[in-house]
């Protein structure tokens, strides 16, 4: 439902954009504009505003640049084209504004709070309402709770600290949480030496670290213990002996010794590394092992691996271009060659437009792709705008809904290739067990346990076993989380939100019951802490209480999968050779196929199923 509401204007936009590129010109666009505008006077005002906004913007939206490029027009068509562009801009802006106002109306209702001037003359009984409307802004809202050390690491490695999930007391983000975010892309990081840089050493001095007034230079060899641990890890990795995911893998220094062509950059490129156990260097190209462990082949990866020599040659030929661009270049040609789906063809093209506009020869891109781009690119910029807006958000009552939905809408379409898997779970055993233990659990946890709690426990256990399902994807790297933060979609008065149960992997059943109970209570009382509002690594959504038997949901952004839970119903099933009435429930997993494949998902579901059908297994 909520998807449809929001997608609707977007579809219009798609249509409009298609028409535009088909050179149906101004009249058509104008009619569409009229259609929309005639609806409402208010909307027209919004259109004006939006148009002004667009004009005020200094940088052109990438889309227009793209439209210009493929069509090398004669001069006399320029006017028309400009007109076309302007219209399109206005149209886009208008639809954005409409969307926004629509959402606000849905969220806040039509009535507006009385202005200050009016309030003075309102009668007493009306005044009683006003304290509710004036909500004291909570100074904590929008702020990140983090230790100074965590902030420093975020600063030094240019990580956005608010993306970290706090593991400290009250969700405080600690240094380790930020370290988890640090992933260095290949080609953006150079080493002068094979040794990591340690503060106080000569390398650090080279790096021009002005602080550390008190540090005395220490030779690397003299640093005990931690150093050897790091070395050992390095060795282990190179021997390719490890099979299990190593939770600290992100931070093991990896030096590509085989690559002779590595450009030795000056020391100022070397990022400061504050502690030896934390050297975030990941070189995808030199790391088949990494792929085994936490990086699954994605279309981009396949490209890297297929022709590494070719890449090397390229970098020799065109040293001016950063490596990233070359890879994209490569990507693009590859995309041309292979017969790809809409999705795959789309992705490199979008990258091309947004990031490397100056690369000259763009091959003739099929028209429908351009149409897609026209439809999507403005939304990306809109997202950025929204993000910023949200960043400065001070009002705690503001709904989280637009954010979540937009993330779904925009990002998902561009970036995921989803498969769904469904299985049926026999809940009879759990049902019996729950009857037996519910009283005892209630004594301990102060909440009544539900089927969801069993599912949460089984899921968190399965996620530990299947780190890929519990991973996030960052452009071309898949990073498995070492912790399990399960998001639960919950209906609040502002629509659906996804509060998070943090570190579910460490919880026992009672703690899960308590955690979930507290979470729902916090949502109900609107006391949900900021850190539990976001940062899930996996999501569970349940519509069983509405009698929904089976459904699939959109993957929450940054997650790689979502589990949809249906209703528990009585059905006749063959049990031990006899047809008997059993309680069964269907669960569906939606999985981003570029993070993990169907078999991974199936095994994951299998583990959950096994645990749920034999709840005694949950003990072990």
């Amino acid at each position, binding site marked *: 439902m909520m998807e449809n509401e929001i997608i609707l204007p977007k579809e219009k936009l798609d249509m409009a954009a298609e028409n535009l590129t088909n050179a149906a010109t101004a009249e058509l666009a104008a009619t569409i504009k009229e259609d929309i505008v005639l609806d409402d006077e208010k909307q027209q005002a919004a259109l004006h505003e939006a148009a002004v906004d667009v004009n005020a913007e200094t940088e052109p939206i990438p889309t227009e640049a793209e439209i210009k490029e493929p069509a090398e027009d004669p001069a006399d068509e320029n006017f028309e084209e400009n007109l076309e562009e302007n219209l399109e801009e206005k149209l886009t802006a208008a639809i954005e504004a409409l969307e926004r106002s629509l959402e606000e109306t849905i969220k806040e209702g039509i009535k507006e709070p009385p202005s200050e001037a009016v309030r003075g003359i309102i009668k007493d009984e009306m005044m009683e309402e006003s304290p509710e409307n004036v909500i004291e802004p909570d100074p904590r809202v929008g702020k990140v709770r983090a230790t100074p050390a965590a902030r420093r690491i975020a600063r030094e490695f240019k990580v956005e600290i608010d993306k970290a999930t706090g593991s400290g007391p009250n969700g405080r983000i600690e240094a380790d949480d930020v370290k988890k975010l640090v992933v260095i892309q290949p080609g953006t990081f150079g080493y002068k030496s094979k040794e990591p840089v340690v503060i106080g050493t000569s390398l650090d001095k080279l790096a021009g670290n002005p602080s550390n007034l*008190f540090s005395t230079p220490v030779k690397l060899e003299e640093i005990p213990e931690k150093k050897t641990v790091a070395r050992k890890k390095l060795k282990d990795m190179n021997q390719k002996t490890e099979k299990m995911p190593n939770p600290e893998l992100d931070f093991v220094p990896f030096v590509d010794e085989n690559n002779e062509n590595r450009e030795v950059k000056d020391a100022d490129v070397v990022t400061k590394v504050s502690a030896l156990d934390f050297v975030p260097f990941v070189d995808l190209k030199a790391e088949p092992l990494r792929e085994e462990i936490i990086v699954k082949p994605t279309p981009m990866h396949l490209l890297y691996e297929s022709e590494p020599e070719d890449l090397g040659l390229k970098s020799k030929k065109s040293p001016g271009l950063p490596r990233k661009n070359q890879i994209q270049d490569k990507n693009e040609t590859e995309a041309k060659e292979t017969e790809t789906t809409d999705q795959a063809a789309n992705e490199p093209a979008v990258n091309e437009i947004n990031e490397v506009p100056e690369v000259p020869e763009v091959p003739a891109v099929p028209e429908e792709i351009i149409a897609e781009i026209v439809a999507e690119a403005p939304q990306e910029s809109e997202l950025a705008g929204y993000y910023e807006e949200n960043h400065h958000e001070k009002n705690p009552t503001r709904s989280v809904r637009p954010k979540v939905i937009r993330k779904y809408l925009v990002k998902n379409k561009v970036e995921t290739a989803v498969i769904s898997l469904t299985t049926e779970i026999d809940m009879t055993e759990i049902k019996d067990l729950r009857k037996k233990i519910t009283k005892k659990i209630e004594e301990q946890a102060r909440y009544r346990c539900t089927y969801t709690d069993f599912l949460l426990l089984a899921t968190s256990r399965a996620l530990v076993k299947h780190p890929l399902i519990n991973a996030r994807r960052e452009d071309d790297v898949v990073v498995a989380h070492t912790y399990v933060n399960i998001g639960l979609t919950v209906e609040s008065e502002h629509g659906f939100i996804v509060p998070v149960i943090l570190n579910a992997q460490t919880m026992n059943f009672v703690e899960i019951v308590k955690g979930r109970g507290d979470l729902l209570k916090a949502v109900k009382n609107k006391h949900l802490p900021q850190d539990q509002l976001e940062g899930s690594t996996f999501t569970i959504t349940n519509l069983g209480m509405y009698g929904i038997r089976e459904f699939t949901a959109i993957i929450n952004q940054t997650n790689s999968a979502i589990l949809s839970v249906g209703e528990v119903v009585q059905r006749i099933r063959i049990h031990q050779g006899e047809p008997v009435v059993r309680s069964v429930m269907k669960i569906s997993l939606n999985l981003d196929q570029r993070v993990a494949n169907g078999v991974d998902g199936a095994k994951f579901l299998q583990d959950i199923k096994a645990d749920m059908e034999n709840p005694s297994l949950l003990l072990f």
Partner: protein
Amino acid sequence: MMKTSDMTKMTYRNAIRLGITEEMRLDRDVIFLGEDIGVYGGAFGVSKGLLEEFGEERILDTPISEGAIVGTAVGAATTGLRPICEMMFMDFITLGMDALVNQGAKMRYMFGGQSQVPMVLRLPSGSGTGAAAQHSQSLEAWLCHVPGLKVVSPSTPAQAKGLIKAAIRDNNPVCFIEHKMLYDAVGLVPLDDDYTLEIGKTIVERPGQDVTIVAYGTTLAKAIEAAEFLDEEGIRVEILNPLTLYPMDMKPIIESVIKTGCLIVAHEAAKTGGVGGEIVARVVESEAFDYLTAPIIRLGGLDVPIPFNQELEAAVVPQRNDFVHGVYRLLNRE
């Protein structure tokens, strides 16, 4: 390093006496004055035997007037003597405060260095003896607030000897804060009569890398106990002893905090307005701020008068378990 053969085991009390005796033998200008220090040998027995060796001219039993003692000492110091004066309890420094703060601490500055005040004030501080609210205070923060005074606080016999000698040789008024509960502490003390400890040097009592604890006086001993306990759990606590509370040497503390990211500051004096707050402020002002991984913890006496009841007395000041819980809290183990 001092050879063990040059050292002998003695109590904190005897180490102070040894330091004073050595200095009095070396320098005829050193005199010692206080209440009952002569025939009786001092309230805590520190000056036993001094009267016999140095005579009534240099070991002066004074009337019960702290104002007179400090005033006399400041005056004597300006004439070139090097007086050591003993308050029977640190609490009574309040009576000598005018002479000390308004005269002794300012004189060298106001006369452009033409006059100096080489005096030592011995101040037995702290609780634990059941001596109740008027005889158990730790007022070092008052003294640290007065520029011109130096404040030292040794925790072991060796430190006591080194610092009392350094204090006597220093040309400024030095407040030498002893802790009553430490008088019977035994430790190796160097016998070398030139052994002094530099004033304004923080030392590392125990190296570690997980949590930094800064403590002095008896709390230091409790911190070390806690560190030994935590050691069994694999938590390595680094303990620093500032020795000189003013002017404090912050460099080792800041370095240590950079290393560990966690800091506990502890003292027996009341937490509010205590020296610990100053240490924390300086750490936060420094580069070490960026290396903090948890909020700093201050352990201090509760903001109440020291109770007479010994159980309550122990409850008021930080104990070993407070350190252990503090460390757990810093490391998220609780």
